[in-house]
């Protein structure tokens, strides 16, 4: 039980560091640590498949992509454009209002039953594979089309326009 609160504190701390660090490269590195704490959360929930996929897809693929683009565009300098202090304070206040609304509505609902692991093998690969390929077969195929479209689109967008050179 205490482990959950420790990891939750770490996730909040590192995600705050992500948005308040000036250097974008440090931001990406803190985001990696944040996603690692999310993986620990999944392991605590016994969702082993999600923990591994989170580890591989987010920390392995997506963040390497971010880091690669940062290095490619050479943005790893401290003098990046920042908003004025007034806009920053306004943004933080707006975000806190959102949090207040969410927490207030949560207080009204009274869902405070403890999370129990009713079915311990729910997050294992075997069980999830059965659900994925029986009940969610069509969405699975559609998501493969989405990935193909994204790949073609990314290549087309990032390619140099021959008329523009």
């Amino acid at each position, binding site marked *: 039980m205490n482990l959950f609160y420790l990891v939750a504190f770490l996730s909040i701390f590192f995600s705050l560091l992500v948005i308040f660090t000036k250097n974008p490269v440090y931001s990406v590195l803190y985001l990696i640590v944040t996603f690692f704490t999310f993986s620990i959360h999944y392991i605590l929930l016994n969702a082993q498949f999600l923990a591994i996929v989170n580890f591989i897809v987010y920390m392995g693929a997506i963040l390497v992509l971010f880091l690669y683009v940062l290095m490619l565009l050479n943005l790893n300098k401290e003098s990046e454009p920042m908003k004025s202090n007034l806009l920053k304070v306004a943004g933080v206040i707006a975000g806190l209002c959102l949090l207040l609304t969410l927490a207030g509505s949560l207080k009204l609902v009274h869902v405070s039953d403890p*999370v129990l*692991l009713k079915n311990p093998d729910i997050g294992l690969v075997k069980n999830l594979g059965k659900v994925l390929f029986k009940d969610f077969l069509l969405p699975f195929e559609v998501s493969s089309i989405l990935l193909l479209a994204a790949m073609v689109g990314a290549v087309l967008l990032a390619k140099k326009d021959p008329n523009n050179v």
Partner: protein
Amino acid sequence: METITQSIQGVPLNHYILLSSIIFTIGTIGVLIRRNAIIILMSVELMLNAVNLLLAAFSVYRGDASGQVFVFFIMALAAAEVAIGLAILTMIYRNTNSTDINILNRLKW
């Protein structure tokens, strides 16, 4: 593995919702206060992850595997979104030599 999963026994569902709300809010604040488009994309990733964690927690709470399958689909969608977003950013950088979103206000009326 048993001893690890024992440690969440007794965490109320409220605390998972609160944690996800806080991280979602941090992502929103990141979108609002930063001007670098890459950091804004990273904040969007943070928001997606908060929702993922909440879906997984609800899935365990209800004893239903569908929530975890949804998380898997969201992860595939996030990968596509980042690939497209970073390609657009590279193109913008090639045309304007910066990733500052204040330059991109030509559609503003």
